[in-house]
């Protein structure tokens, strides 16, 4: 059920070509992955222009580092997504002072409007992501959002409490319970 072997193989082939400085591989790679990766950058940064900057920097880094891809042992999309998240977090830290606060409900309405699992593109997601997808959707929506934002925006308990205007104790309790449930669930996929 994970990313179809041909999809992964295609991305790996494109990364290999980029590693040999064959720039013609970049356009097809961008076409296959940019929507997924821009969605990620947008979720981290919450602003289109900054998310576009992060995406641009990430693809340049992918261009420069594609030759190292194979040493990572990661599925190709997971490797690229890590690069996008790092570049997006760099921009987020650079603009930390001016960062807006929003409530958990705002954040939720940006992404998952209900408790129904969002459709997962099983064509492209790695096996690891699919397992996580199943487990994280067993969490209650607010817990799921808290866990997601903690990771995606690299926020501490107190930063989460401030940004989402929740009591610190609530953040700690929800995160602990959410992670415990995730652990129990993910162990089944191990």
């Amino acid at each position, binding site marked *: 059920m994970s990313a179809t072997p041909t999809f992964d193989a295609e991305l790996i082939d494109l990364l290999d070509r980029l590693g040999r400085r064959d720039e013609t591989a970049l356009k097809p790679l961008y076409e296959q992955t940019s929507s997924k990766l821009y969605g*990620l950058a947008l979720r981290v940064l919450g602003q289109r222009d900054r998310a*576009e900057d992060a995406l641009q920097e990430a693809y340049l880094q992918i261009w420069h580092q594609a030759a190292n891809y194979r040493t990572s042992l990661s599925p190709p999309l*997971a490797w690229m997504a890590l690069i996008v998240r790092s570049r997006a977090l760099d921009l987020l830290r650079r603009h930390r002072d001016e960062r807006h606060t929003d409530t958990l409900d705002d954040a939720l309405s940006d992404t998952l409007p209900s408790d129904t699992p969002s459709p997962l593109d099983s064509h492209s997601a790695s096996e690891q992501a*699919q397992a996580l997808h199943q487990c994280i959707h067993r969490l209650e929506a607010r817990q799921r959002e808290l866990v997601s934002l903690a990771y995606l925006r690299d926020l*501490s308990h107190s930063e989460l409490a401030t940004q989402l205007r929740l009591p610190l104790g609530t953040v700690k309790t929800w995160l602990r319970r959410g992670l415990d449930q995730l652990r129990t669930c*993910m162990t089944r996929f191990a």
Partner: protein
Amino acid sequence: MNLLYHPELRDRLAAAYALGTLRGPARRRFETLARQHPEVRAAALVWQSRIAGLNELQPNQAPAPAVWTRIDNLIRADLERHAMAQTHQAAQADAGGWWNRLALWRLAGAGSFALALLAVGAVVMQRGQLGGQIAALEQQLQASPRISYVAVLNDAQANASMLVTFDPRNARLTLQRVGDYREASDRSLQLWALPPSQPPQSLGVLGEGPLLRLTAGEDELRGSPLLAISLEPQGGVPSERGPTGPVLFKGAVIRPQL
């Protein structure tokens, strides 16, 4: 407490470590243990990889088409820089060989040619002498048949700032900075063809070096009597949008009658 004997706690800490919510001294203690004990390290790596799945679970969004243009422009500039560095190295490594002598000849040719152009650029400011100078230039061009189009781009004070030559055989535009203008690090210079009664057409984005090469088709130059350089955000803007920043340099394309 020794994590090695408490797999449950080890796993819980590894998950919080991967999520990023394990912070401060507790994070440092966990990292120290992970360095010392493969079991702890393995748990941390497993959880990092599991949590990283969150990156792939975000809703898809198509980026604006301009993003691809910017990336493509920057990659091309990177390739040009790389190619020029390699040519330079090869020329140095080959000192004394026939190939190098050929390269030297080319350089010498380009140098005297550039000097001739500079002279043109300087005199173009003085009205009335343009015709004679163009004739001289055309003579020069016929002596350098690889180059079929040239332009001297001037700034608002009519100082020659950029020399442009076009080699149709290699579809190659060469730009040489002759003024001391340098754009800020977060800006790029972008070269435009200005065909009559049509929107400007981007010919490419310039890198930082003194000598710049861009790939262009002859058709793009043939129909454009004017070239211009605008100041744009780093990486340039998509051609269809046209220049968004100020035009810094412009000049006529001069075509020899070959």
